[in-house]
């Protein structure tokens, strides 16, 4: 069954602080938005990299954490009824014959909009690939960065790498199914939940699994089929038999499919003008950390400014015949009605 096509005014790629505030600025001008983000929640870097860290340069907030800022923005944009599509990557973006845009996600959803706003920050968060020679040849065949179906690992010799909750949880969950499990971590301390760490140590003591302190330095196998790995430990190099590997080193940002959409780039950033923050393709705007223009500063507040100007330009595309009057939320009853406060 194919998904119905979602029709909207604006598709926003990225639900970080700047993508969220774009909903506000577009909403004041009566434009409806659909947001798509690779993470499973809003906030972008504020949610994934530093939810608990203080930010000191948001105007009006002497100090606010990434998580708090995200929550405040979600509250601020609530009146505009934007729809969110999480845990999805936009894989295709193309201009249609009538000047509108078709946006497709890796879940097969399709959006049609008059305007697209790319607010993708440093790109999409993807699993960190360990810098081991040739690992890319094994990916999706023997090396996996997530577990979709546990059954797929039944009877296999598993090499799990990492010291956080993902590594420990999957070690314990897959142990009953696997033929063997070897957990590799760089030090004999784990930041995972203490209960999981204790359980893992118990399984090691019972001889049900192996724990090695070190790093994976080499993979062995043919045609993407892993057969073993070399682990560098303090006592020397240890060979491990393994036909499935699960590295858990967290996430990093990759530009990803953005590079394939025919936009003019400047050192992996989308080149925009400073009047409308429009890319080289009219109707596609880029705001926040993902854009480049002379003098660009990668600050959240710069992204907010860019969102406001972008919205004015987007309005002319979405409603070309409508005359837009510039208004303030403080004095305009019309705007206050949209915000649900008048």
């Amino acid at each position, binding site marked *: 069954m194919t998904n119905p096509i979602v029709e909207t005014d604006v598709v926003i790629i990225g639900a970080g602080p700047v993508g969220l505030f774009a909903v506000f600025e577009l909403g004041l001008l009566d434009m409806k938005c659909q947001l798509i983000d690779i993470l499973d929640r809003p906030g972008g870097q504020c949610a994934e*990299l*530093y939810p608990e860290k203080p930010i000191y340069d948001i105007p009006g907030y002497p100090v606010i954490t990434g998580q708090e800022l995200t929550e405040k923005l979600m509250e601020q944009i609530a009146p505009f009824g934007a729809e969110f599509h999480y845990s999805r990557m936009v894989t295709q973006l193309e201009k249609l014959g009538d000047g509108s845009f078709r946006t497709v996600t890796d879940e097969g959803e399709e959006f049609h909009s008059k305007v697209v706003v790319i607010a993708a920050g440093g790109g999409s968060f993807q699993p960190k690939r*360990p*810098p081991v020679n040739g690992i890319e040849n094994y990916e999706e065949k023997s090396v996996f960065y997530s577990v979709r179906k546990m059954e797929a690992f039944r009877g296999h010799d598993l090499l799990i790498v990492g010291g956080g909750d993902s590594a420990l949880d999957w070690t314990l969950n897959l142990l009953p199914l696997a033929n063997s499990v070897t957990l590799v*971590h760089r030090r004999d301390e784990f930041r995972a939940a203490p209960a999981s760490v204790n359980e893992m140590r118990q399984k090691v003591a019972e001889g049900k699994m192996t724990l090695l302190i070190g*790093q994976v330095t080499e993979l062995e196998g043919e045609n993407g089929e892993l057969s073993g790995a070399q682990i560098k430990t303090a006592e020397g190099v240890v060979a491990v038999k393994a036909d499935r590997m699960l590295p858990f080193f967290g996430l990093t940002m990759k530009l990803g499919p953005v590079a394939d959409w025919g936009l003019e780039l400047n050192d992996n950033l989308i080149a925009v003008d400073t009047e409308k923050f429009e890319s080289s393709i009219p109707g596609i705007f880029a705001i926040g950390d993902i854009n480049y223009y002379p003098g660009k500063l*990668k600050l959240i507040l710069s992204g907010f400014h860019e969102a406001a100007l972008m919205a004015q330009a987007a309005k002319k595309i979405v409603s070309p015949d409508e005359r837009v009057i510039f208004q303030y939320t403080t004095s305009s009853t019309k705007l206050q009605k949209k915000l649900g406060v008048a």
Partner: protein
Amino acid sequence: MKLIVTDQAGVVHELEALEGWRAMEVIRDWGLNIKAECGGACSCATCHVYVDPNWADRLHPPTEEEENMLDSAADATEESRLSCQIIMTDELDGLELTLAPSAAKDEAAA
């Protein structure tokens, strides 16, 4: 004040550093291949460097937070540090660092 940095290709760079700057900021400012995606918040491990053993004792030991972040660098060794956690001082004039493979930026799109 100097910072001696060997990049991922093995090229040695002698960088002019300023007191109070993070080593990561010096390396980034000179345009070397460092991703440093969280911008110095000790939240990503993409400014991972190896410290020359001769200098290791002159650095303050890593905090638990830094150790936890280093867990997400698959090429971390005994000599690993996050360069955003090294603040340049007179005592560190001449510090020798090597950029880890995991600190490299994504290759530029063609």
